[in-house]
């Protein structure tokens, strides 16, 4: 908090004295590039934080500029402007949020498709702006837009832009440090894990995109009164591309990167385009080199140093709120479930039911449908026919984030966590899932959340208490255990574990077995484990289900299964 205030004061002071240092003309020039920089900040959020690249940000900048220009022309000097101008800045945000919800809905992979959709949309926006002569003024644009009432001097324009930039920067600086920022970076690294922690990823991404729309909107809404002219190029491909280049070269993942990129490259371009005929070629080459070798951009070299100096982790002093629906029924049932992929049949009428707490193991030869059974239960594979009931209600095809919120936890075969986040941040995503409300995600206090399960897990596995380590730096076994702990701190009633002992040493396996036994009893949960290691199964399983060719072959206690000739035949057949 103190460092945030210090940061704010330094930023405001720097922006305030700048015009005195550089004079009227440069103040005017900076005023324009500050507006572009605000829009570029939005790209930093989407691309540098949440990991998806919008290629059509100019569409929002242009939309806001037209709305603001039209408002100023038609309601010159009216008090309505107090509503209309903020409206012009917010409208693109709403549009972006809507587009985000539609595009991200039900889609796990958003990468290039999202980028190309936004590119196509910006081309469409340009066409509309260019052709709708009656409203937009067509190719020549909206002209003679009045300035903001009461401001005429170039320095006034500078201060408006500077204030807007400072406010946006401080808001983003706050968000980046807040749980929301951690969540965005988690989305960029592993959308699936975020969903299994109970967050509706599409809403998170749509919100980030909406926020980037607001940032572009603020830039655009101020552009109209500053330049007194709005032309279709503001919605166009070139400005969209420039905004991305500025963010990339300046450093997309850093706070100041997009601003440095926009101001530095923008001013260099404006000055050098007349002087160096190959300037645009040089700029393109710089961009390629940045993409190839310097993905962190200019500020990527500088900013992490300061962040490391200033960042101290909040102590875990606050018990997290309890998860809603933390207790109740723990049973589930699969009824004649069929799943096909292409022409391959994966589950062929699987029936499987559990009605109370306990530890259950799913075994079967490779390709029997064990992992597919989990995938069908958590909505990762489309179910063609049959029903899935969890905790007494029909949950066929429900999304993972919803299931997580009602108390289903899942650990994957290969550790699925957030390698570039610290252990603490990995835990936090697990703690926040299903518990944090919007205001918890925007405030700083929830960084200090803890829970009894977390404390006990850290006591059992001391490396989990070294919370400042990067999760990706842990050993394979440690990552398995970290993921398991993340699943457990969400306090699920149904725990699905896919080969939790894979890649673990003998001692680690033993520790995991104990941990599972402990947590299963502690949470009074149903734990279902897919496992090949028969020692593991023998030690843990209250009951065993044997799957073969997408169907349930047998079920029973360890002894019953060991005595079952059909099971033996399958294993012998499979290994022959």
């Amino acid at each position: 908090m103190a460092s945030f205030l210090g940061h704010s004061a330094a930023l405001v002071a720097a922006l305030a004295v700048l015009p005195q240092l550089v004079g009227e003309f440069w103040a005017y020039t900076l005023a324009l590039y500050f507006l572009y920089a605000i829009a570029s900040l939005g790209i930093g959020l989407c691309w540098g934080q949440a990991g998806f690249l919008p290629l059509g940000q100019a569409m929002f900048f242009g939309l806001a500029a037209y709305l603001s220009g039209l408002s100023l022309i038609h309601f010159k000097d009216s008090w309505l402007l107090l509503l209309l101008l903020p409206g012009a800045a917010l409208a693109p945000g709403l549009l972006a949020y809507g587009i985000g919800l539609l595009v991200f809905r039900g889609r796990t992979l958003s990468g290039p498709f999202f980028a190309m959709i936004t590119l196509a949309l910006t081309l469409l926006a340009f066409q509309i702006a260019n052709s709708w002569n009656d409203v937009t003024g067509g190719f020549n644009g909206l002209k003679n837009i009045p300035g903001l009432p009461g401001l005429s001097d170039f320095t006034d324009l500078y201060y408006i832009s500077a204030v807007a930039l400072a406010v946006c920067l401080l808001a983003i600086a706050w968000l980046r440090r807040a749980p929301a920022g951690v969540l965005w970076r988690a989305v960029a690294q592993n959308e699936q894990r975020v969903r299994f922690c109970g967050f509706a990823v599409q809403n998170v991404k749509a919100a980030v995109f909406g926020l980037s729309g607001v940032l572009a909107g603020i830039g655009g809404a101020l552009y109209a009164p500053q330049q007194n002219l709005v032309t279709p190029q503001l919605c166009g491909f070139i400005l969209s591309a420039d905004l991305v280049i500025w963010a990339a070269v300046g450093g997309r993942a850093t706070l100041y990167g997009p601003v440095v990129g926009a101001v530095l490259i923008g001013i260099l371009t404006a000055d050098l385009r007349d002087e160096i005929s190959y300037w645009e070629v040089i700029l393109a080459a710089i961009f390629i080199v940045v993409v190839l070798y310097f993905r962190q951009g200019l500020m990527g070299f500088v900013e992490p140093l300061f962040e490391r100096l200033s960042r101290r982790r909040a102590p875990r002093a606050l018990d997290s709120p309890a998860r809603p629906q933390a207790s109740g029924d723990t049973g589930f049932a699969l009824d004649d479930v069929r799943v096909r992929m292409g022409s391959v049949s994966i589950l062929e009428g699987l029936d499987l039911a559990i009605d109370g707490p306990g530890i259950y193991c799913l075994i079967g030869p490779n390709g029997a449908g064990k992992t597919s059974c989990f995938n069908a239960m958590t909505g990762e594979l489309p179910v063609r026919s049959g029903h899935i009931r969890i905790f007494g209600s029909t949950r066929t095809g429900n999304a993972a984030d919803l299931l997580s919120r009602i108390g289903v936890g899942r650990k994957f075969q290969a550790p699925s966590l957030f390698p570039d986040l610290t252990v603490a941040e990995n835990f936090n995503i697990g703690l926040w899932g299903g518990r944090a409300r919007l205001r918890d995600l925007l405030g700083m206090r929830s960084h200090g959340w803890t829970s009894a399960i977390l404390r006990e897990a850290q006591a059992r596995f001391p490396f989990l208490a070294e919370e400042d380590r990067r999760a990706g730096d842990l050993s394979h076994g440690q990552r398995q255990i970290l993921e398991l702990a993340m699943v457990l701190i969400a306090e699920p009633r149904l725990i699905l574990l896919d080969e939790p002992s894979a890649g673990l040493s003998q001692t680690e396996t033993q520790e995991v077995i104990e941990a599972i036994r402990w947590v299963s009893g502690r949470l009074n949960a149903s734990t279902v484990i897919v496992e090949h290691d028969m020692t593991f199964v023998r030690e843990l399983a209250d009951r065993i289900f044997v799957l073969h060719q997408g169907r349930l072959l047998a079920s029973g206690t360890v002894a019953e299964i060991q005595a079952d000739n059909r099971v033996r035949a399958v294993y012998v057949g499979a290994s022959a």
Partner: protein
Amino acid sequence: MDPILTTNILNVVYEVSTLAVVVLGLAVVFGLLGVMNLAHGEFVMIGAYCAFFVQTQNLPFLAAVPVALLVCIVLGLAVERILVRPLYARPFDTLLATWGLSMLLREGVEAVYGRGFKSVAVPLTDSIDVLGADYPSYRLLLAAVSIALVAGLVWWFVRSATGRRIRAVVNNPELAGSVGIPVTALARNTFVFGCCLAALSGVLLAPLMPVQPMLGLDFILKSFFVLVVGGLGSLVGLISGSGVIGGVESIVSAFFDRTYGYTTVLIIAILFLWLRPNGLFPRT
């Protein structure tokens, strides 16, 4: 048949077939390498400038074909080695890097030839009577060559040993590598081949469009839309996609005007990207 209707039909055939050749190059590279080469349109542009260059040297029009192929083989090899190969594991960065490349090529050509429009003389200026409609013979020839080219390549792809290898790599690169198919070389050759196909289209289309540095932008967008509509990586998809995008634009333009044609294509593409991102004929 009404000569105007005939002319309109021939316009659609011309637009769809020439578009299909451009897309074919992009689709082959995407299918095999999983690389969306956003500089594909710039290779079309370079082909067109080769035609212009050959004209300024007073050489016959067809001399542009070897010149363009040579330029694009050299360029394609360099790009594959420097930009594409190091980024195989980072598809998103490939998108950006080839996008940067497209700017580089565009601005590079602009630095040499300027932004102005260059014109390449049409090699055949007479017209042919098709069912009562007078149609320019170069356009007819171009449509015929395009159809033959696409058909020939499809036949080659299905029949030849190289075609089989390519399909093997598409299906399972690791397995293909382990059975001795030189995956790296095949990927490199495919990339260069895609570039050459673009350049060839550029040469052939040069007489029928104003040659200027920005022309590639339109081709890459339209080609991408074709892939989106048709589905990535299948030939049926390629042809149906070209048909939808090229056909809709021509037909809407013929009945209304270009603004509507252009806007309709954009809207169709956006709807597909949103609702059916795997296209009409998704790869299984």
